[in-house]
């Protein structure tokens, strides 16, 4: 299955943001959610089919013009599945050009046993632009080994590469230098700075989570966990706190989100972060 989704957000000239382009095709269906209050808009990616599956070739293009504020979320985790043998790996390319503010906060990617999924992300943030980029990965569904996943992320700010990261996960490759026995990983890149509402001083560096000032203008927060809840506990407050920014009101999420083929459920926070104990 080949699919392209395209989202273009522009300043509407009245202090708000309008979606100049919002189109996609199954399984990449972007939907505007939330009201039009505030300066920003929120778009949810709505999965139109199970997957990605082997052979899928998916592309998401996002452009955020100067003065525009866009938050992108997804309604459910992305579940990479094996699909038909002999087909090439499933592929997801995300390309974003950001002159305004982009907050990319999707649900996790789950690497089901037997999957072979390649994700490639390239984000260009112009000087003066603002980025919050979250990527979560869960290695295998409950009690199953992980599939094969290869992630490659390039984030550039003001014409220089700020963050360049690749991660390859495959069955039987657990190393205490990489992920060890942890099954969940979350990363959050903020450029050029953490949202003003996030105080790194309140974040405690542990042996499973850290906030790191990058060499260039930006931060990386990384967390590992036995499951995605531990990762969320570490990283969500940083994303949740940013909800107060012009991106709009927090989107209430369902307590449980059905994922992919429905054989598995991912626990998601039942309340917006501001109401959760962890945020206080």
């Amino acid at each position, binding site marked *: 299955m080949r699919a392209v989704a395209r989202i273009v957000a522009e300043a509407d000239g009245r202090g708000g943001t309008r979606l100049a382009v919002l189109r996609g095709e199954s399984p990449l269906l972007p939907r505007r959610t939330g009201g039009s209050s505030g300066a920003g808009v929120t778009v949810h990616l709505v999965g139109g089919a199970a997957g990605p599956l082997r052979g899928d070739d998916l592309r998401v293009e996002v452009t955020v013009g100067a003065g525009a504020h866009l938050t992108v979320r997804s309604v459910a985790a992305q579940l990479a599945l094996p699909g038909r043998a002999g087909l090439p790996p499933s592929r997801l390319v995300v390309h974003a050009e950001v002159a305004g503010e982009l907050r990319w906060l999707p649900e996790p990617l789950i690497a089901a046993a037997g999957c072979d999924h390649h994700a490639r992300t390239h984000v260009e943030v112009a000087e003066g632009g603002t980025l919050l980029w979250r990527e979560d990965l869960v290695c295998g569904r409950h009690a199953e080994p992980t599939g094969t996943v290869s992630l*490659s992320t*390039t984030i550039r700010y003001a014409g*220089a*590469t*700020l*963050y*360049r*990261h*690749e*991660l*390859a996960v495959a069955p039987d*490759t*657990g*190393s*205490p*230098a*990489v*992920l*060890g*026995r*942890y099954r969940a*990983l979350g*990363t959050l890149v903020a450029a050029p700075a953490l949202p003003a509402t996030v105080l790194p001083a309140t974040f405690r*560096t*542990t*042996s*499973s*989570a*850290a*906030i*790191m*000032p*990058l*060499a*260039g203008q930006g931060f*990386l927060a*990384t*967390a*590992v966990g036995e499951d995605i809840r531990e990762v969320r506990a570490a990283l969500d407050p940083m994303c949740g706190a940013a909800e107060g920014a012009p991106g709009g009101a927090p989107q209430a999420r369902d307590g449980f989100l059905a994922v992919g083929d429905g054989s598995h459920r991912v626990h998601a926070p039942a309340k917006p972060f501001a109401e959760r104990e962890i945020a206080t």
Partner: protein
Amino acid sequence: MSLATLLVLADGRLPAGGHAHSGGLEAQVSAGRVRDLDDVAAFLRGKLATSGLVAAAFAAAACRRPGRWAELDGGLDARTPSPALRKASRAQGRALLRAGRAMWALPPIGREPHQPTALGVLAHAAGLGPEEAAVAAAHGTTTGAASAAVRLLALDPYAVHALLARLAPACDRIAGEAARHADDAVNDLPAAGAPLLDIGAEHHATWEVRLFAS
């Protein structure tokens, strides 16, 4: 190319500051993730495939184009999110340059480059090629942490060296892969990350008491 020169460059006794660094092992030992020889083996394999590959590729690239050391250093900055690891890499790069200047005539390079950049430039000055620079980098990735493992876990040194011998083919393979990238644009060079090395290094840097600098 002189094999003996390569051995001089890759010798663990080279006074280049390596003995004070555990290559991230001390943090993982303390976190309980590395307890025995099997864990050390898994740690070294993971390290070799991630930061080892990156170090080898950048050493090879710096050997091929020493004049581009600053651009390569920027590439390593972008691949090293942990400030503690950037500091450790630059401290070892500086120490390596100090040793290198005593041995060979080095082309211009900054005062405190990343260790792989410095290694590549030294290899170039020593008349070695990108593949040799890469193998020295990959080898150094494993031997430094292995030596720390002997000290931190009181492991049998023969068992640890047997492990290093078993890892040698993997070192060669990683170095070969790295050297094939020697001419790539900096953004296209390998960028394999190791989340636990990043997190561990940051946590380690907050300790009041530690044995190794990183």
